[in-house]
């Protein structure tokens, strides 16, 4: 196995070639905030929260999709990166309609937690109050577009893990939204197996069980990880 050596902040590391900067940092106990990335799904670098600085380059790189290379010197927590991360979170809050007080995910929401982590006590960007809908056509689950941050975790889990590919991303720019089937109501899409994986990996209160009321939605990304581990190692009885 070929190995490369690199430095992240003040840690010298040796990792197998092909390791991403995010994996390398996590192995060394260095925290990099992430939102669209989820262990067990492919990485798409949609949210830009995990950006890091590389010495000798002006270009910021998304740690979740950048491979470690020999001699890299990486910084994960500079003032510039802290400023960008706070701005990314402010963008996510202001482009949708997040009313945490009445949200199913209040208290268990990855976006809400990240707001605390980046020190967002208010948004410096104006709120847009867009007009967005709620799809309650599915027998068991609901989708509130007001709280969707377009991380595409639902799209990936349904395609890559469940094999149903119910979800996709439709439209462009400010009209961009998650769609089911060919833009049909979720409840009309026969491909949906009612497995609930999309609900379990959604980081916010956008996807939820219809029986959840405020503060009752808990995500369960660890169930996806247990399933992927079992599939990879053919270990079905822990």
């Amino acid at each position, binding site marked *: 196995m070929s190995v490369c050596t690199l430095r992240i902040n003040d840690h010298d590391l040796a990792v197998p070639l092909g390791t991403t900067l995010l994996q390398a940092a996590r192995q060394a106990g260095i925290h990099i905030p992430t939102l669209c990335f989820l262990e067990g799904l492919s990485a798409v670098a949609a949210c830009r929260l995990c950006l890091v600085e590389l010495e000798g380059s002006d270009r910021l790189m998304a740690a979740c999709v950048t491979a470690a290379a020999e001699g890299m010197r990486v910084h994960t927590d500079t003032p510039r990166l802290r400023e960008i991360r706070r701005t990314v979170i402010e963008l996510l*809050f202001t482009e949708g*309609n*997040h*009313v*945490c*007080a*009445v*949200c199913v995910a*209040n*208290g268990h929401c990855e976006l*809400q*937690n990240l*707001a*605390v982590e980046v*020190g*967002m*006590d*208010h*948004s410096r960007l*104006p*709120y847009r*109050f867009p*007009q967005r809908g709620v799809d309650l056509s599915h027998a068991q689950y609901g989708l509130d577009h007001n709280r969707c941050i377009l991380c595409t975790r639902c799209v990936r889990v349904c395609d890559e893990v469940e094999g149903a590919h119910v979800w996709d991303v439709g439209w462009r720019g400010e009209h961009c939204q998650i769609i089911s089937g060919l833009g049909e109501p979720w409840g009309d899409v026969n491909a949906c197996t009612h497995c609930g994986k999309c609900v379990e990996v959604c980081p916010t209160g956008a996807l939820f069980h219809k029986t959840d009321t405020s503060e009752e939605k808990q995500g369960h990304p660890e169930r996806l990880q247990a399933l992927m581990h079992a599939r990879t190692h053919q270990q079905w009885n822990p």
Partner: protein
Amino acid sequence: MSQATPRKPRLATVWLAGCSGCHMSFLDLDEWLLELADRAEIVYSPVGSDIKTYPKDVDIALVEGGVANTDNLELLHQVRANTRTLVSFGDCAITANIPGMRNLLRGSDPVLRRAYLELADGSGQLPHAPGIVPELLERVLPVHELVPVEVYLPGCPPPADRIRAALEPLLRGELPHLSGADQIRFG
């Protein structure tokens, strides 16, 4: 000759478009309110004073609620003009939060029609009493989108401990530095 004691900070609390929950949480400060009454002069507050007009020369104002109507807007401008440290108090003040949900209906007219005509029985009518019932603004806005704000105290409502964590430094004439889930979490 008596020695001049330093002037106590002059404190106000203000209620715009909010449910008064932030003020209820302020009252949850319980016995610390006695200490507060001792260390500050309460010059204007819906829960702590009978004064009806906003006074001059206020040191600290906790402002609850979004800005939803012409009365809210006028009072906010008076507060800003007469206050050194304006604290945006609670999620409605900081994000528009619950009152801001009416912004999804796009404008004051659809909101009034929805509330007073569409959801009414046969006898519904739009409220119209100029000078008595304040006009709704087209959109509910957070306080800092209209006037500068010095301190943000998130939460729906901010718990009493969090309010005290902000007030302690303010009473000493310092700006608080709030951080972590106990102090700046929304919701």
